[in-house]
């Protein structure tokens, strides 16, 4: 698909507000065009349907020749008002909505939301559920990084990697389908635990995947790491220092690629992550290459964590013993009067959550995903706000692209791994 070119010549006397004016007055661009004549820069409209913007990101780029002078993201094309919808649902009914925020890591969203509500209720969940949550979250991270690697490499011209990545991603989606019945919008986690015990063949399936995956990561690296085109397109491109990254709210792999050793799984553990042994990959280079290296290492660490979770998986229940919050087992519901009453009450009235406000952050594949849940004591959340990593990271785009070539914008967008679903919500 070709670039949507919108050649608006700007008045050189106009300063900072010129891009804002373009956003607000794009309908009148012909007038602007007619009124100006001697200009040095032009505005290029990239997106919202450009394939390398990973969704519906629209960028307004002010360029001087091929050099980017300004870069203003224009977002909101995918805004669906999920935060507003959450306020009209019971606590349990919000879980399927969270899948749809960051559609590449549904399990991570589920986990963050469930942990927040469990914190509001003050609920302990069984160790088996914690281990399964950790295992599925790490599989989600690998799955998301595979989509990132495939599309990022494709943006920069390496088409083969995309097919390889999606081949392995398919295996993870099969695991998800086996465990939850859905490939992408899993909604597998519940407030209080998990919805079902995994089927018997699940463990062998995960084990086979974990055994196969390390050699596949080597395979991707063989395709890319020594490739002179890949190195030329990524090394020294889109540089971000540690100070800039912190000031602009960057989290996750881009933050660690800029030399900040911070990972919520290790530094503020949740869902039992303190029981697992893993390394946090950090790089000091701060460029697109460093983000590539950090994510590739992260996939290897995720395999290690998932393997530990599989090996040490305790037996026991998969949901907390809280009959007024967790739905009863199907068999009990059909045979016991009390379970039937609980089932009916939970489905029709939900469950009341004590008043208060909590913020629960987890390390998603893209960075810090935080759920801020406010309860007023009723069965529906008073306010749910999602702090999404891509939304903040997008603000660093201009710093990374300024003064660089237009072609590097594509490399930088790929390297911060944005998902527009979570930016616009």
């Amino acid at each position, binding site marked *: 698909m070709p670039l949507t070119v919108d050649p608006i010549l700007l008045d050189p006397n106009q300063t900072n507000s010129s891009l804002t004016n373009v956003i607000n007055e794009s309908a009148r661009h012909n007038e602007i065009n007619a009124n100006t004549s001697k200009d040095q820069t032009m505005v290029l409209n990239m997106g919202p349907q450009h394939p390398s913007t990973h969704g519906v990101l629209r960028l307004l780029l002010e360029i001087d020749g091929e050099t980017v002078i300004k870069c203003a993201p224009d977002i909101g094309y995918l805004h669906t008002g999920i935060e507003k919808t959450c306020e009209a649902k019971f606590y349990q009914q919000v879980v399927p909505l969270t899948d749809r925020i960051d559609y590449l890591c549904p399990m991570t969203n589920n986990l963050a939301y469930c942990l927040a509500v469990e914190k509001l209720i003050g609920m302990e969940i069984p160790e088996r559920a914690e281990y399964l949550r950790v295992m599925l979250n790490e599989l989600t991270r690998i799955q998301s990084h595979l989509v990132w690697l495939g599309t990022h490499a494709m943006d920069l011209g390496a088409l083969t990697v995309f097919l390889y990545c999606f081949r392995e991603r398919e295996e993870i989606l099969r695991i998800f389908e086996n465990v939850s019945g859905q490939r992408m919008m899993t909604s597998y986690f519940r407030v209080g635990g998990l919805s079902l015990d995994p089927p018997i063949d699940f463990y062998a399936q995960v084990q086979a995947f974990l055994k196969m995956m390390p050699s596949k990561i080597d395979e991707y690296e063989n395709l890319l790491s020594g490739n002179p085109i890949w190195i030329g397109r990524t090394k020294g491109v889109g540089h971000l220092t540690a100070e800039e990254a912190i000031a602009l709210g960057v989290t996750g792999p881009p933050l660690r690629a800029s030399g900040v050793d911070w990972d919520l799984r290790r530094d503020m553990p949740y869902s039992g992550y303190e029981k697992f042994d893993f390394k946090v990959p950090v790089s000091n280079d701060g460029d697109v290459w460093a983000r590539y290296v950090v994510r590739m290492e992260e996939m290897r660490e995720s395999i290690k964590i998932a393997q530990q979770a599989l090996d040490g998986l305790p037996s026991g229940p998969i949901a907390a013993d809280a009959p007024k919050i967790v739905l009863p087992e199907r068999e009990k519901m059909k045979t016991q009067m009390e379970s039937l009453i609980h089932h009916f009450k939970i489905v029709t009235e939900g469950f009341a959550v004590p008043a208060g406000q*909590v913020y629960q952050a987890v390390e998603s594949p893209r960075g810090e995903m935080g759920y801020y849940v406010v309860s007023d004591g009723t069965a529906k959340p008073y306010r749910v706000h999602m*702090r999404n990593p891509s939304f903040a990271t997008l603000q660093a785009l201009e710093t990374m692209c300024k003064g660089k070539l237009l072609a590097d914008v594509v490399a930088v967008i790929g390297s911060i791994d944005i998902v527009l679903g979570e930016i616009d919500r």
Partner: protein
Amino acid sequence: VACHVGKDTVLENCPDNTALLALNGMPGLLLDAKYDRDEMTLTVPREKIVEACEVVKVAGYNFLEDVTCVDWYPSDPRFQVTYHILSHRLKQRIRLLAMVSEADAAGTAIDSIIPVWPSANFYEREIFDLFGVRFNHHPNLIRIMMPDEWEGHPLRKDYPVEGYR
């Protein structure tokens, strides 16, 4: 789980919380405090939000995670602007609250904290867009999610879920 409500109670029970001590050390900065479910919530006057952010930043809370708003309609003050700030060094998170009344929301609501943390830019635009709370000295306070010509602020409690028909 311990729950402490009120400035004096929290000061007594959490004597080693860095942010609490830093804000309490400055005159007129700490209005109220609450320690609930392992989370520290500190209420500051809305006129002094920038000063409060600078104080906690100096105290070691270096990373702004999130800015959002809660609409407590029909109470007054109506809007609760919420800041979540993280310290990488202390491995600790605090929540700052600033209350804004409906009368102030469209006028001199609250100062932008972009001078302290540039990452507040998009968050403040989002609050302006969805709640209609203005931020003074914001360089580019325009709608971010909704179309420019949209009427109303969807996340307000008096805005119906299905929108106006």
